[in-house]
């Protein structure tokens, strides 16, 4: 056993560059050889503030990126940081999207799930895959990464709730069309859980394997605290996830229905009607 690998204290690194993606979203670039794979996460510590899991938006052995939307206390603190400021990281942790050589892959990204999906697209293109990138957002102002994705030379299709860009409506409509047209090896998705559930169900109906990035309240990230255990198997999302197959998840009561808060209480995505 390599005991050194059990050291999960922070590595302190400085922000090298900050890219403004839109009014509420920044990408932070670090000169650090993280060696993460698409779908994996890092624990990010802002000393004196808090520590949260963040999806890796890109990693190439020299640098890595995380993309952060201002939605709460921690992400707001992140947005106050400047180039040169220090943060702590632990990781990368968790499972990743498994990309085979030369496969036909459909990526479905919702909201800020676009960032880790970009990383998957980048790796898939390098592996000679044919990639459809389906991107959903509420409106045109909230889109991110479109130029980077087009730069990869993948087939990008966009849907917005208000039709301000791309097709008006949900991205799942486009997914049904794409899966109906040609044979697809795998569907990968990252975004709001309710959207990912719909993506899983559509893929399942078309007999295509689908992998989703499960988001749970996490504390330790290293398989100890049990905070991210998923009902009813008790599997830990930080270890067996975050990327999990829909084949496995569809049999569980939790996905797309509820999540558990910091105290472990159930919080339903929609009000229970019974």
């Amino acid at each position, binding site marked *: 056993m390599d005991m050194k690998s059990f050291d999960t204290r922070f590595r302190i690194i400085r922000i090298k560059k900050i890219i403004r993606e839109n009014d509420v979203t920044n990408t932070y670039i670090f000169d650090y050889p993280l060696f993460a794979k698409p779908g994996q996460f890092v*624990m990010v510590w802002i000393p004196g503030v808090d520590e949260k899991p963040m999806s890796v938006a890109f990693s190439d052995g020299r640098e890595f990126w995380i993309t952060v939307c201002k939605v709460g206390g921690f992400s707001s603190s992140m947005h106050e940081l400047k180039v040169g400021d220090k943060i702590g990281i632990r990781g990368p942790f968790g499972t990743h999207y498994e990309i085979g050589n030369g496969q036909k892959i459909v990526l479905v990204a919702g909201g800020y799930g676009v960032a880790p999906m970009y990383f998957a697209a980048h790796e898939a293109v390098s592996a000679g895959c044919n990639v459809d990138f389906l991107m959903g957002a509420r409106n045109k102002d909230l889109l991110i990464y479109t130029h980077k994705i087009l730069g990869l030379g993948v087939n990008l299709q966009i849907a917005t709730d208000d039709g301000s860009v791309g097709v008006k409506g949900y991205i799942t409509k486009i997914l049904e069309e794409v899966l109906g047209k040609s044979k697809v090896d795998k569907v990968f998705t990252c975004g709001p859980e309710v959207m990912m559930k719909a993506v899983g169900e559509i893929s399942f109906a078309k007999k295509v394997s689908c992998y989703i990035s499960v988001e749970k309240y996490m504390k330790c990230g290293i398989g*100890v*605290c049990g905070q991210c255990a998923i009902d009813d198997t008790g599997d830990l999302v930080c270890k067996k996830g975050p990327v999990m197959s829909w084949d496995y998840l569809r049999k569980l009561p939790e996905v797309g229905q509820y999540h558990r808060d910091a105290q472990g209480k159930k919080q339903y995505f929609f009000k229970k009607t019974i």
Partner: protein
Amino acid sequence: MTTKSIWLNENAGHKNPTMFGTEHYFLNAVGLSDAGIEKAVSETFPEYLKKKPAPIIASIVAANIDDFGRLAEEITKCKPDIIEVNIACPNVEDKHGKPFSCVAGDSAKVTKIVRARTKKPIIIKLTPNVYNIGEIASACADSGADGFCAINTLYGMEIDINVRMPILANKSGGVSGPGIKPVAVKAVYDIYKATKLPIIGTGGIMTGEDAIGMMMAGARLVGIGTMVYYRGAEGFGEVVSEMENWCAKNGVKNIEEIIGCAH
């Protein structure tokens, strides 16, 4: 199987970072976050008891004596096999907020009220952060405890030298893992000597051999927590196999014969 400690009311716990590990030890300050007794009654226990793969020990925790009494009553309705009383929390009624577990008289008071409010077997979880753990154990034994769980974590803190501040959001936390095993073995040895009541020995147990040593110090059962970090959940079964192998190799037919044999 022991639950995480259950409070009467919802308890938020601490912010992250709440824990990290090194090759020698693990440091945590989760702050006993819990949704309260209501969830234990309505969800946790009914779900677990449907299958009940192993006996269950319900751990309860409170910051004042009265809450311990009410919790003992409420948790009894959940039908646990044993109630573990976690007395490591600072006593809000103490002038200096000392944990119950650090004062023999306070440990005894908690034991007494829990004893009065339940017929279930009760074990007291003891802290190693005292001068004489045998004295605390004796006080609990005299107040109606049926056994002990020892040890809770040691006090600890680690500084990140690059940012010049403690790593844990709570600044200090509890040390567990391989490095604390000798502390735990000594505590179990002392409790066994002082009371002869059954002990769940816990603290730094990573292997079957560790567990055997703990039993020789006086533990009737062995508790495992932090091992999960080093060996994963499959480690539980592996430790049991290692214990069986050791017993077979050393001609131990009945595990009873090694309990306290080092005395």
